[in-house]
């Protein structure tokens, strides 16, 4: 089978005056639109551009482009073509090896409606209790079902193109008609990345936020409003599916949680920055994390709500150090219906 090809419409860029993809970037300094346009043209023309080296791979330009033209995927393609390494080679090698399918997947009692646990063990700790009554066992886990979007961070679009069609096929072969994606990045992959590469997705991907909303409405009677103020940690793959952001407000509304207005939410969200650390070193990553956390403190967050388990790993301890209670969205829902939190801060660092 020929490899999927990125569907990118250069005429849209030609007609674009705002160059929001670069001008909006929080990590590259393109205040000058003309300069941005020039650099972006270099990317399109497959010339060397500072963009290819400076890109932090935060995914945000996917959201900024008003034409849905996948500027970030193009950057990734170009980085790979030019052999530009956004992260050290051994880190990329580690990722490529770690997620290759080797037949060690887990398939539960899968029904037409199933949960995707992606390749994230965290999710097993989270999926418990009433919220998942009747569906928790209908699940798939492992490299065979891994969305592979992570290679966008590592200039390896070729791996996505190679593995994603197999992943889609594997899911289809389970007879799954509706896949509730517990990892936001899977949802982004099946709704944005797959279509950008012309890969057909023969099942309905459902964002787990949508699933939670529906369940919470069913469980309305047992919800005890939390009455808390929370900062939302918006993750990179949320940029692939910004249409799901309203669910954050919907869920918060159902739980009595106030989403604090702060500098770094919505379009201006800051990355959890652990990918930055591995790519660009600690000073840059520490600065982003510091700004993000100070922003939460400044705007009075009592809780920091996480969507992505990787953001949790990066920031939960640091938020806690600043007096902000970290909590995953699923656990937040559990808290409101009187159930126990699944993902907790680790005490491992304490041992000497």
């Amino acid at each position, binding site marked *: 089978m020929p490899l999927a090809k990125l569907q990118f419409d250069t005429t849209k860029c030609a007609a674009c005056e705002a160059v929001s993809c670069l001008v909006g970037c929080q990590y590259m300094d393109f205040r000058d639109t003309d300069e941005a346009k020039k650099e972006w043209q270099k990317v399109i023309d497959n010339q060397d551009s500072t963009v290819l080296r400076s890109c932090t791979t935060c995914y945000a330009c996917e959201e900024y482009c008003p034409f849905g033209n996948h500027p970030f995927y193009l950057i990734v393609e170009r980085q790979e073509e030019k052999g530009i390494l956004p992260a050290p080679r051994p880190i990329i090698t580690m990722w490529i090896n770690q997620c290759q399918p080797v037949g060690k997947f887990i398939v539960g009692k899968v029904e037409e409606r199933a949960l995707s646990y992606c390749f994230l063990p965290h999710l097993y700790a989270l999926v418990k209790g009433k919220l998942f009554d009747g569906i928790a066992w209908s699940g798939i886990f492992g490299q065979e079902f891994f969305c592979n979007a992570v290679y966008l961070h590592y200039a390896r679009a070729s791996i996505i193109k190679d593995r994603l069609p197999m992943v889609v096929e594997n899911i289809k072969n389970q007879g799954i008609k509706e896949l509730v994606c517990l990892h936001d990045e899977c949802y982004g992959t099946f709704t944005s990345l797959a279509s950008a590469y012309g890969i057909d997705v023969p099942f309905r991907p459902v964002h787990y936020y949508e699933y939670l909303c529906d369940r919470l409405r069913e469980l309305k009677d047992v919800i005890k409003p939390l009455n808390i103020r929370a900062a939302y940690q918006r993750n990179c793959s949320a940029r692939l599916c910004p249409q799901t952001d309203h669910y954050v407000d919907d869920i918060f509304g159902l739980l009595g949680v106030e989403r604090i207005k702060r500098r770094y939410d919505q379009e201006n969200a800051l990355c959890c920055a652990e990918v930055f650390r591995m790519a660009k070193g600690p000073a840059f990553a520490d600065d982003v994390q510091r700004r993000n956390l100070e922003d939460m403190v400044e705007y009075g967050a009592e809780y920091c709500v996480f969507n992505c388990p990787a953001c949790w*790993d990066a920031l939960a301890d640091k938020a806690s150090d600043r007096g902000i209670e970290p909590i995953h969205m699923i656990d937040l829902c559990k808290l409101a219906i009187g159930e126990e939190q699944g993902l907790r801060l680790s005490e491992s660092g304490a041992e000497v």
Partner: protein
Amino acid sequence: MATTGTVYDALVAIVGKDFVSDRKEERYFYARDGGLMPPHEPDFVVLPRTREHVQEIVKLANREKVPVVPQGAGLALTGLVIPQRGGIVLDMKRMDSILEVNEKARYVIVEAGVTHGALKNHLQKHHPQLRHSIPDSPPTATIAANAVIHGQGRLSQQHGFNSDMVSGLEVVLPTGELCRIGSCSVSPYWFSKGPPLPDLSGLFLGWFGTTGIITRLGLKLYPCKKMRDVMLALTDRAELVPEIMLRLSHTELVEDVVAAAQPLPLRFRDTFWIMAYITGDTQEELEFKRKAVWDALWDLFESRDVGFLSLPPAMKGPLLSMPSKDTTRFADVSKGGGFQYAGPIAPIEKFPLFVSKLEEVATRHKLFYSSTSRLIGAGHCMMFSFSFSFNRANPDEMARAKTALDECSKFALEEGGVLWKADIDEQKLLMDKMDPNTLALMKKIRKLLDPNGIMNPGNWEIG
């Protein structure tokens, strides 16, 4: 049987009948260890409680010319406590008192059966500002046995072999005399195993119990910082590993440096993982050390040859735990209850050569391998491990593992390495290669100390 009965009765008279066994079951278990050396049964297993017990037993053995093999937890895996000529195995683990911690002179005096696990717990509870160099063997490993095999642990990068940290010994000589070694021979304080006196500890450390039985041991303790963290540098170029290790050591801020290479789980494949442990009393101190580690490798990071992996708590926990349960878990990789490693002590420049040999040997013998190499001293050498797991229910795989280990040991020796806790076959290889005058000296010492050749015979046996 008459002689056996007599010795049995004599042993019972010394330690009581609950602590002597000549039964088949104990003889079976104490005939072997978890490694690949062929078993040989003792005639008796004895559990002494006091140094007087040990003295009496050794006097008896010397009189009756019965072999005596002291053992801790039997975890060396190279069969050093397999009683090659039968006789008496002394399981020292009942001598388990932690006798004294001198906080100001930073040492502890323990009986020979005290385990690393028990000492770790004791220090954490009662002297949290002090720690010792914990090896990655299971917590039941004893401090004395670990010192006798020149073990290494979490503080070896800074302070050398665990045996370098011994600060005094009390030994029962093969002829039964109780003898103190080091400062404790003239002073109530156990702060030095030798200097400024003639260092007699060398008569016992590294001799695998062939020159006497340690009954008490002083061990140096070191400051225990309040916090500890691990950083993980990855490279896909084996030839960079020695350089990375040296640079980390050069910071003089890193506690422990370990390089791992293994093909599975998949995330390990094709890359070398170098763990750098740092400690601090404050976040600032830790942060300063973190930065120093990054700075030490910054150009290699920029050239994209070295990366640092951000570790989620689930990965960090096992790396920080002491001892490391993951090290032990390697035994069940083949779902078969076994692994063994050849662990030559060698210059760190040999890392790339050794690691490619390991891969080659493992592939040829169809074995699963791993390697965890620890920097010892400020780069003076490393312990490189050629580790193979095997299934105890698969004799063919066990045979292949033994062949592979022998090949690796020979190779390491040819390349200038010195075999660590060498099994009896490797001891022969070492002695064949050894300066003949050195060998003659060893022989004289043994003959002098153990005229009847009763102590762990078969080991360091010079023809």
